[in-house]
Every structure is written in structure tokens, then in C-alpha cells.
């Protein structure tokens, strides 16, 4: 899980082009959207594409992203349960 968490943080930084953010700056439990990292609905769509490309998980309902992308922890849990690659 620890490995996946680091990988996810790196992917998020890369896919969302978060210049000046380091993996260690993102807390596992902190909210990614709104107050925390300050991401928005377009970032959520980018993460949906990333989930399909990297982990083979297809998310059909954009609203479902809200729960999945709450924090790094929720993302990691979702990926480990649903990944197909």
C-alpha cells in the first residue's frame, strides 16, 4: 500500500502538472479537492482518465469521483480493490 501511495502522489503531480509540489507535500488524509490541494472538477476528470490509463479502472459517473478522490488514502484503497492492471 505504501508503494501505491507514493506512486499515486507522483502520478497526480505529473498528470495535473503540479509544479513545485513534492510527493511528501501531499498528506495521505488531507482533502485533494477544495481546501486541501485546491483541485477542481477538471482535475477530477484528468484523474478519471489516469485511473483508466494506468490502472485499467473505468469510472463512468463523474460524480463517483468525489468519493474516490477524497484523499490519497481513499484513492489508494479504491485502486487496490479495483485495478485490472
Amino acid at each position, binding site marked *: 500500500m505504501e508503494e501505491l501511495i507514493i506512486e499515486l502522489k507522483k502520478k497526480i503531480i505529473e498528470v495535473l502538472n*503540479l509544479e513545485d509540489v513534492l510527493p511528501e507535500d501531499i498528506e495521505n488524509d488531507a482533502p485533494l479537492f477544495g481546501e486541501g490541494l485546491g483541485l477542481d*472538477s477538471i482535475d477530477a476528470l484528468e484523474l478519471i*482518465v489516469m485511473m*483508466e*490509463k494506468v490502472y485499467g479502472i473505468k469510472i463512468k459517473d*463523474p460524480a463517483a469521483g468525489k468519493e474516490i478522490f477524497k484523499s490519497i488514502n481513499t484513492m489508494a484503497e479504491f485502486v487496490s480493490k479495483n485495478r485490472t492492471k
Partner: protein
Amino acid sequence: MEPIMITGAGIVSAIGNNRTETLAALLNKQTGIAPLQYLKTAHREFPVGEVKMSDEEMKQRLGITQEPTTRTSLMGMLALQEALESANLQGRKDLNVMLVSGTTVGGMDRSEQYYLDYLSNDDRNDYIKTHDCGATTELMAERFGLFTLATSISTACSSAANAIILGANLIRSGRAEIVVVGGAECITKFHLNGFNSLMILDHEQCRPFDATRAGLNLGEGAAYLVLETAASAQRRGVQALATLSGYGNACDAFHQTASSDDGEGAYLAMQKALTLAGLQPSDIDYVNAHGTGTPNNDVSESQALFRLFEDKVPPVSSTKGMTGHTTSASGSVEAVICLLALQHGFIPANYGWKEAMENGVRPVAEVQKGVALHHVMCNSFGFGGNDSSLILSLVSSAKDEHRKSTPVYIQAATHISAQQPLSEDWMSEPVYHDVPYVRSADPDFKAWLNPLESRRMGKIMKRALVTAMKVMQDTGVTQPDAIVTGTGLGCIENTELFLDQLCREGEEMLKPTYFMQSTHNTISSLIAIKGGCHGYNSTYSHKSISFDSALLDAYLQLQLEDIRTALVTGNDEMTPSYFSILQRTGYVGAPGEVAATETSVAMMLTTEPCEALCVVEDVRLSLGMPQLTDFVGNVDAVMLGYNGQQDNDRIYETLAAQLPDVPQLHYKHLFGEGYTTSGLGLYAAAQLLKSGVAPAFMCCGGRTEPLPVNRLLFVNHSDGQDVCCAILKRL
């Protein structure tokens, strides 16, 4: 405002190829949304509102065989033909008839087919020049050969509504008696995939304002209205079908693709339209809503309607359940639908609606016939919060207005270009480039923008934002009444990235960021979002007069005293692959020509007397060569866009020959060539008027002494077709 007559109209959409068919479909509540038939795409799962003709069938109907064309231009020609015929304008070259058209897709239907050819071979070179928005408008204009001005607006889904607004301003300012206005847009794989990447397409028939709505269905079409002064209509003996009695444009300034929860931009646009029309909310008998069927739009628009009309919301319907969302054409497609509703006394149905949504309007579900309508409102909202609202009336409430012509000043300006960026003093140390392709000299963006807010921005957006911020800072005008941008190609880097993915990787897992950044109006709306500017916001994309068109728009509104301050910007960027295409095809980069470069220029225009750079005495656009001696008067210099290309320079020589004794200035040897380099030229002209002398290095003919300049004519042309003349004067 003075009453503006609508003396003609034409329409092509999924529900009919003319007004008669459209009316029949509306009265019978027939949808044109069906499985995909014409567009070649892997996404067969999405229902769409296609015009029920192939490109070939459209060409047959038009009686043309020419290529290149674009599907958008073919639909546009059909709708224009009907509009011109109905207003009895066919072939009337003796009249001064202008054309303002909205599109965002332009020639993308061809580019997405031939993109890989463009990059690697010469098989499809003819189509390269049809890519941009302006090319599509010019293809349409050429077909009729009677327009005296042509320009293109690109504000995504409100483009056609904003074209109607510019047309009205051209009439109110006394520039025109007849303007044909509207928009055209075909469905492309590019934006079908783009909307899919944003996850806002419904897999079923769309259901605007319904509790179960799940997105929009794309549509396509074209529609044009003929706007005319009462005096001209009377003189020509044509009947007005209705009048355009009010309009408003405001910016939501909230997010690039989402609308705010309280619908601020929509609310302000509707309110402005009512004010201009001199009407009360209770005067509106019907609202044709933007109503796309996306969860977000319909909530936001409902809130705006509740704020404006309170508990007395008039009958509302979205007709997108029948036509699909015709994107850039929707403003005029729906204006023609409103016109038909007014003329025939009915309220169109909100097709697909069954169940009331929470906190939303309850639309008219079935056609209501035999209803006396006096004033109807038509809403069009675009990405970036470019929101516009129109009011059409059977009998106008408008009164004659005293025609104003308030002096307009260029208060301050700045640039990021091939010269020292953001510097007021670049003329003291001009930089010369001896290479065919120069990227802008960029400042340290981090000093202006934090990395989180700029994470999705390409270079063009950062440059546009920084130049805008600098001018706002320098002038203290942090929330101008209008922000108007000109861009020939918009955010070409992101467009190219999305096209590349689409053509090489296929139609799955495309990056939503590339798509949302590819729309031309991204630039103007980003400036508005950054500054919280809810005023007028628009974007022009018409080849090399893109900036000039933006300047004209702002100038007219300032003169009309609709606004007091306007930020006008010009932005274009170059990518290595785009440059290589242009070079291979001989458009740029030959020896002896100036470099192909990038442009970012921003200037604040104001009617408040101030320590300005100069006064703008006049701005004129024309399709075809103008007679300069008719309006120029005495000038100390004429500034021309010589770039070393024979065809280009010959046109400037011909124009300048009309003013044989006037010294000539040039600027493209400093800034290079690009679609909006004229903005940099105008900026340089304003700067030298401030000092009262043109440096010798800007003078043509080997002059070695600076030239005193108090009044200057700036001339810019696009392919020898469109010409802009601006007269600037020293304070």
C-alpha cells in the same frame, strides 16, 4: 437604444433545412436527435442532432463544386442564402451589407481528417488555410460577394449571440444600415470527443431541466438574421419580421467550463438586455433557455431565472431536446426559433422533459399554440462564462437614441513579444532577429502567477494574463467594463495536443485539459476569472484582423457610452510543428521575410480623459480595399505591415499610393509576422504618438532622422481581403 429591425432570417438544423421545415417541426414537437449518420467517429453510442444532409448533398443544393470547403461553411451558406433571399438582398452589391458570424470549430472537420497529412506531406495543403474560424466565414462571404465587412466571433456556445450583439452595435453607431449576423457550426470528432472527455454528453435523448438529465446531445446547424435600420427597411420596402430590442453580454468569471451555482453571469446578461430594451421582467412572455441538459447548466440557469423573475418566471423552454446543442450556432438558431414563435404565436416545447428537477424551473412540456407573444428572451451561455441574452419583440419598445461619439483614449498598453517583454522602453534598444521563427521573450511568470493556478495554462494563456494584469495594474482599472480579445488561432498548442492524441491514439482516454484549453475564448475568460470581471467579454478570431475586430468592438461600445473602460488584447502563439507546416507550404519563413513570431499585447481603452498614450479617432474594417482619401484627412505618417512577402507588401504599396506624400512607417521587422501582430503595431504607434516622434528605425525609405508625428493612420490587411484602418492622434 434605437429599434433594430429583423428583416430576414435563415436556418438549417437537425429539425429542418429552412424556416418552413423548422416551424413545422416546432409546432409538431418533433426531435431531430437520432443515431449518428454523417460524422465518422468511433463514438456511435451518442445520439446527435445532425443536419440531415451530407456535405455533397449540401453542395448540390447550393449548386457549387468548389473545394476546399468546410461543413460549417456549407451549412452557413445555406442559412445565409435563405436569410438574404427573405430580406430581398440577393446580389445587392450596391448596398452596404456587413457580415458577422460566430464559429469555434471553423474548419476542424477537415483538420481532424487531414492533420497527419498536414504534418508530413503535401496532399492536403489546400485545406490548411481553411482551419481557422475566419476562413470559414470568408468561404461563406465569397459565395455571395456582397459584404463590405466580414468578421468572426468565437466565444464557444455563445458565439452567434455575440455576433448579433456586434451587428446591433454596428447599426447603433451609424456604421451600418444592414448587418447579417449569426453563426454556424458542424459536429466534429474533435468536440464530440472533447465534450465526452468532460463527461457531459448524455447517452440517451437529452432532457433539459429534467430531474434525470445526464448531459447534452451535440447538434449542428447555422442560422442568420438580417438586422437593419428602420430607415433602410422603409426605403427598400421590406417588412420587419420582428425587432431586436435588447441584448446583454456578461461574464460569469467563475470557472472555465462550469457555471456558478447562482448563475451570476447569466443573471447579469439578462438584466443588461432588459435595461437596454427599457423593459421590466414582467414584460417577457417567453424565455428560450440555454438549457443544455447538463446537471450544472440547468441548475445555474434556473437560479439566474429565479433571481431575475423571482416568483413570476415566464414560460421557459429549451429547444435543445429537438435541435441538440448547436454550440457556436445556438445563439442564432434559437433566435430564429424565437422569431418564429413571435410571428406565429406559440411557445415551443421542452422536448424530453418529464420530471421536475430540484430547485429548477418547470419548463413548458408541450407546445402551446395561439399565445400572443410580445417580447421573448433568448439565452446563450458559453465556456468561460461567456453569457449573452437577447430580447426579440414583435413591436419594439425601443426609442430613438441620440447618436454619440465620445472620444476614446488608449490609456496604457504592454506586450510580450520578440522585443523586451513588459518594457515601456523597448524602443530605446530594439532587438533584431535574423532567423525565420522567434518565440516570445517571456518574463518570469512565477512573479505574476502561482504554479497551482497556472497548472493548466499554456504559454499563450500565461502571456495573455500577465500582459492584462500589467495594464490593469498600471492604469488602476482592475475591473474593466469590457474585455475583448483577438486571436487568429487561439490556444494552438493545446489544440494540436488534442488533435495529435485524437489522430494517433484514437478516441479514448483523451485529456480534458487539452480540449477545454483549445477554445479561443479561453484567453478572455481567464483574464475575467483572474480579475473577477463580470463585464462584457468577447473574442474575435478572423485571420489577421482578429485584433482589429476586437479593437473595433471595444471602440464602438465606448463611443456609444455603453461602457467606459475596455481591455483589448491580442494573442497568438506558435508551435514548432505548426511553424514547420507553414514553412513547408511556403506561407512563412522564406529568405528576406520577417520572422514568424508570437504576440501578446494588452491595452486599456477609456473614455475618461487621462494622461493617455493617444486618442483613437477612428477604427474601420472593410472587406475589400477602402478609399482612404474619403475619411483619413491630414496625417503625418501611415504605418504599414510590410513583412518582405511580395504579395503582402504589394497590397500595402497600393494602399499607401492613395496617400502619395505621406511618410511611411513599418513595425514587422521588429515584431515579426503573426495573426495578431497588428496589435503590436498599433501599440507601437500609440507609444510613438506619446513621444511625438517616430524613431528612424521605424521609418521606411532609409530615413536617418526621427519623424515628428501628431496624427497617424494605421493600416493592416489580411490576405488582401480585409483591411483595418485606425486613425490615432497625439494628445
